[in-house]
């Protein structure tokens, strides 16, 4: 038993220590992955863009960039040159269009007609407008012949095109001349030959991309990419500076900031989980100490014999280390291996930086050494106390006199003050802050720790006072109290670990859920639906084709000085928009009431919109007939929702959008199939940079994992506490039952004893965790100005589960205790 418990204790210790290191590192990797996933793949490596450059200069930039890229580990470069958007001549017609060459462009287009790679490739939209056919030659026959008609690149652009989307995806909704269909040349040379004489001085554009086979998955890989990228950019810059042409291109190393953010996220998670990790390790080491005490009790005769033969406390400490080293070492190795191979269960990523596993192994090793030191010191001090100092326990009493709960309460207050007073940082153009505060994140954990320590203090006082209590009228309670008081150390230890376990579990799940829900809700309100995209105004006015209308709804968006006005289709809105906690039937009923009445436009006012009729630009007289605090897209801002049927002239609506409850790909696929142009696809999943939320969530996910570990420790401690006293409890119980104690009373006494420990742990831990999660969730919300603020999570299912598991553990341990009484052979126990 001792060996097994030592093994498990070392396993959990090594697991916690190694997992903390791996988790923090994985948080950095997850942050890298998350940010890389939000960026266009080709803008993760360095980029160079030049507008209004001479064609010769553009070609020089491409040559220079290719050389610098290859010298710095970017063997593949995708360079492009573009003409301006003009009304170029095609057989006498002059549609808005542009010419370009891009490395590999023809490999990434869908050919509809032809396909020869020795001529121009024209998009279907341009071919239709200008009547271009295969073999035609533009610009009065000076261009190469058209050898292919390709399918227009649409929004969202595929990975190869994402960095060029602004140029390549024609926007029919844009003003004339702002964009145009792209005609592709087969080679750079052909582009230069044909376009050189006509693009004019400084009117070409050049772009340089360095696509990589594999995006960085860890902070180190990201830093390496950024470092190499910077050397490429420095080389290009130096080359251009030599010719005094640095102004030709804008150089970008856009992933440098995400790498810094990922480092910050990793550091934040590490710092935030550090306090609870340390506490968990201390609890684990205390467990090792308890195991050592049990070992010393079992080996008491041998230790006394060695003592009598002249061995000192230190030698006896070494004796304990020698015997327990094997199970501790085995447990630590298994714990380290478990932490490494179960990382996908508890960490946000399984990608780890090189060198972090050895670091985790070093931490596990340090924890093992600490455990061995505890074994040696506990044995030595116990030997000193028992054999040498006459059984005094002054040190233990001194530790108990320290007001630990006041210290942790003070630390919790400081963390709260920090959380309350630290302004969150905003980045321009990004509605969310980029950092979460590690000290602030520790606040709920410190509160849980304080509650656990207060519980322990009260329990200790209570147990000390029970010797004056006589409850023999209820013998089961009296027996339970006596057993608890007789093993007060074990009882308060179990209470401490149990309350910590349930508290951290509750606060971990609560805060993580609250942040996840908040991100979900904010994203939903921010976008309005699972996916939205802008569509032509004529489609907005006429309505969606039936095959699309079954999956989407039309929403007109009008931004006025008075607020935002949404023009909705009451029949389809509720089933397609993101409604969060709103009941779709309620929303549908409210919107149905917006039907035109003949006297003005009935409106649903949102947020702080005034409860009075008023005249709104381009909509007319609006009569509010209802109110809602929040509404998709408007959020908690000020606005009105009107029915499209009530708007006098739908041509007055600037922007029309299709909103759908389907993923973005399916929405645009449906629109493409219906030949409806679309632009600016936005999805709820990518609406907001959720990294600050995720940082909080990752932190508390690990808190949850630690809570589970602590719960295992608490359950094991309960089993151990019963097992350690199994012999004496069995003897006492067996004698008591032979003297008339009823079986029912015996069972009830064990249930009372174990149930009170588990019950207090669950009650105190759940209460502390739930209150803490409710209080801290809004404070930990990284974007409180983006409503709604994270609120109190629903913890009823978790508390129910915790209670059920605790009840099961109590029932099992109680069964084992009663069984040991019933199967006890009194004669052997007395003689033993």
């Amino acid at each position, binding site marked *: 038993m001792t060996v097994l418990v030592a093994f498990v204790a070392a396993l959990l210790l090594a697991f916690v220590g190694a997992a903390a290191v791996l988790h923090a590192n994985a948080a950095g990797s997850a942050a890298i992955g998350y940010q890389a996933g939000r960026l266009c793949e080709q803008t993760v490596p360095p980029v160079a863009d030049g507008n209004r450059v001479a064609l010769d200069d553009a070609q020089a930039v491409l040559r220079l960039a290719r050389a610098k890229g290859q010298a710095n580990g970017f063997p593949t470069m995708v360079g492009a040159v573009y003409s301006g958007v003009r009304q170029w001549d095609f057989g006498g017609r002059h549609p808005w269009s542009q010419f370009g060459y891009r490395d590999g462009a023809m490999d990434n287009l869908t050919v509809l007609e032809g396909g020869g790679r020795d001529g121009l490739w024209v998009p279907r939209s341009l071919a239709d407008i200008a009547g271009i056919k295969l073999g035609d030659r533009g610009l009065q026959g000076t261009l190469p012949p058209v050898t292919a008609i390709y399918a227009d690149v649409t929004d969202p652009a595929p990975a190869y095109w994402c960095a060029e989307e602004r140029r390549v995806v024609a926007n029919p909704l844009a003003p004339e001349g702002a964009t145009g269909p792209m005609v592709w040349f087969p080679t750079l040379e052909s582009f230069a030959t044909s376009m050189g004489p006509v693009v004019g001085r400084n009117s070409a554009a050049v772009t340089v991309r360095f696509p990589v086979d594999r995006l960085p998955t860890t902070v180190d890989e990201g830093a390496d990419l950024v470092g190499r990228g910077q050397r490429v950019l420095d080389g290009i810059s130096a080359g251009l500076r030599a010719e005094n042409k640095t102004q030709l291109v804008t150089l970008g190393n856009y992933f440098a900031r995400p790498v810094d953010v990922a480092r910050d996220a990793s550091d934040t998670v590490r710092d935030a989980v550090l306090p609870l990790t340390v506490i968990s390790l201390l609890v684990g080491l205390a467990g090792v100490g308890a195991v050592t005490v049990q070992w010393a009790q079992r080996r008491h005769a041998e230790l006394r*014999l060695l003592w009598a*033969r002249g061995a000192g406390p230190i030698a006896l400490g070494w004796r304990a280390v020698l015997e327990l080293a094997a199970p501790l070492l085995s447990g630590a190795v298994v714990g380290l291996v478990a932490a490494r191979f179960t990382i996908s269960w508890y960490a946000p990523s399984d990608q780890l930086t090189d060198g972090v596993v050895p670091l985790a192994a070093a931490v596990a090793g340090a924890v093992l050494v600490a455990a061995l030191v505890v074994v040696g010191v506990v044995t030595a001090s116990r030997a000193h106390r028992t054999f040498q100092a006459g059984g005094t326990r002054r040190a233990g009493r001194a530790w108990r006199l320290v007001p630990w709960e006041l210290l942790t309460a003070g630390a919790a207050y400081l963390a709260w003050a920090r959380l309350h007073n630290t302004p969150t940082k905003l980045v321009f153009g990004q509605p969310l802050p980029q950092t979460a505060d590690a000290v602030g994140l520790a606040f709920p954990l410190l509160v849980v720790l304080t509650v656990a320590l207060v519980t322990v203090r009260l329990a200790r006082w209570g147990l000390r006072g029970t010797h004056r209590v006589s409850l023999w009228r209820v013998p089961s309670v009296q027996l339970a109290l006596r057993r608890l008081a007789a093993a007060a150390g074990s009882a308060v230890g179990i209470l401490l670990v149990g309350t910590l376990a349930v508290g951290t579990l509750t606060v971990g799940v609560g805060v993580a859920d609250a942040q996840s829900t908040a991100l979900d809700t904010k994203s939903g309100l921010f976008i309005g639906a699972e996916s939205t995209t802008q569509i032509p105004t004529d489609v907005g006015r006429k309505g969606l084709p039936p095959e699309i209308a079954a999956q989407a709804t039309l929403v007109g968006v009008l931004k006025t000085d008075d607020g935002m006005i949404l023009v909705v289709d009451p029949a389809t809105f509720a089933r397609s928009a993101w409604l969060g906690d709103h009941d779709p039937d309620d929303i549908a009923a409210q919107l149905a009431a917006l039907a035109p009445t003949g006297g003005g436009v009935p409106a649903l006012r949102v947020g702080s919109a005034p409860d009075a009729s008023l005249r709104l630009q381009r909509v007319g007289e609006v009569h509010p007939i209802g109110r809602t605090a929040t509404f998709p897209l408007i959020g908690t801002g000020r606005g009105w929702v009107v029915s499209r049927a009530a708007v006098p002239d739908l041509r007055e609506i600037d922007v029309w959008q299709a909103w759908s409850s389907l993923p973005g790909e399916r929405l645009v696929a449906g629109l493409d199939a219906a030949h409806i142009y679309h632009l600016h696809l936005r999805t709820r999943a990518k609406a907001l940079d959720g990294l600050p939320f995720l940082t909080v969530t990752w932190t508390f996910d690990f808190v949850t994992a630690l809570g589970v570990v602590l719960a295992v420790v608490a359950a094991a401690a309960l089993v151990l506490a019963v097992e350690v006293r199994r012999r004496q409890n069995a003897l006492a119980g067996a004698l008591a039952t032979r003297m008339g104690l009823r079986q029912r009373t015996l069972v009830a006494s064990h249930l009372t004893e174990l149930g009170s420990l588990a019950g207090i742990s669950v009650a105190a831990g759940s209460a502390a965790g739930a209150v803490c999660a409710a209080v801290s969730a809004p404070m930990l919300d990284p974007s409180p100005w983006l409503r709604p603020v994270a609120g109190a999570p629903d913890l009823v299912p978790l508390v129910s589960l915790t209670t059920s598991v605790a009840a099961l553990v109590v029932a099992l341990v109680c069964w084992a205790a009663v069984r040991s009484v019933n199967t006890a052979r009194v004669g052997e126990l007395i003689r033993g």
Partner: protein
Amino acid sequence: MAESLFDAEPLFDEVVPLYELRGAHVEYRTPAGVVPAVEDVTFDVPTDGITVLAGPSGSGKSTLLRVLGLIDRHTAGAVAWQGRDIRNLSHRARRAVRRDRIAMVFQAPPDNLIGHLTVAQNLRAAAQSAGRPDADDGILEWLGIPGTGDWKVGALSGGQQQRLAFGCAMARRPAVVLADEPTSQLDAASAALVLDVLTRLAGEGVAVVAASHDPDLVSLGQRVVRLREGRVEGIEGVAA
């Protein structure tokens, strides 16, 4: 060696006995207050022969034995080991005396042996704990348990275990063997064999101090210190 650890001059001038007790007191602190266990005890233990501390339970026999074994400290009076006062000896010095000069045999036979070792390994461990390489050859025959060297100690009977305990004590080549009720947990036949070992041990020139109320063991004592309620009731034999 142990002698070098004593800085004080011998307290007494006559031929130096192994132990000299003069008005020794031992008290224990308990939750109910200070309890005297031994009061004003005065006697000597010579360097050879069997000395028995006799008396009923609670008379202070085991307490005195622990003081003589340098495990507990006396609280008043004087106790000398080979002429030197032991009261102010450091923990280290007391351990050195216990390691090099004293062997203890406890009441319960299993308490005197390391359960997971064999008989031979126990003897070797005992010898090595006193800085000696191994027990003498033939010690098992001397103890009356020949051929049991490879046995786990659990395979021995209680009497055999207790004889092995004296064998371990012998293997340490001590100046004195302190035995606390060595026959109290044995049947008469086993006790007789243990007494035989004890007698032969004394015959080897080792001083033996035994605490017991076993009449057979008491009758073996060349000196018998009778104790009652912590005080010396009488001293019989040559030491008187």
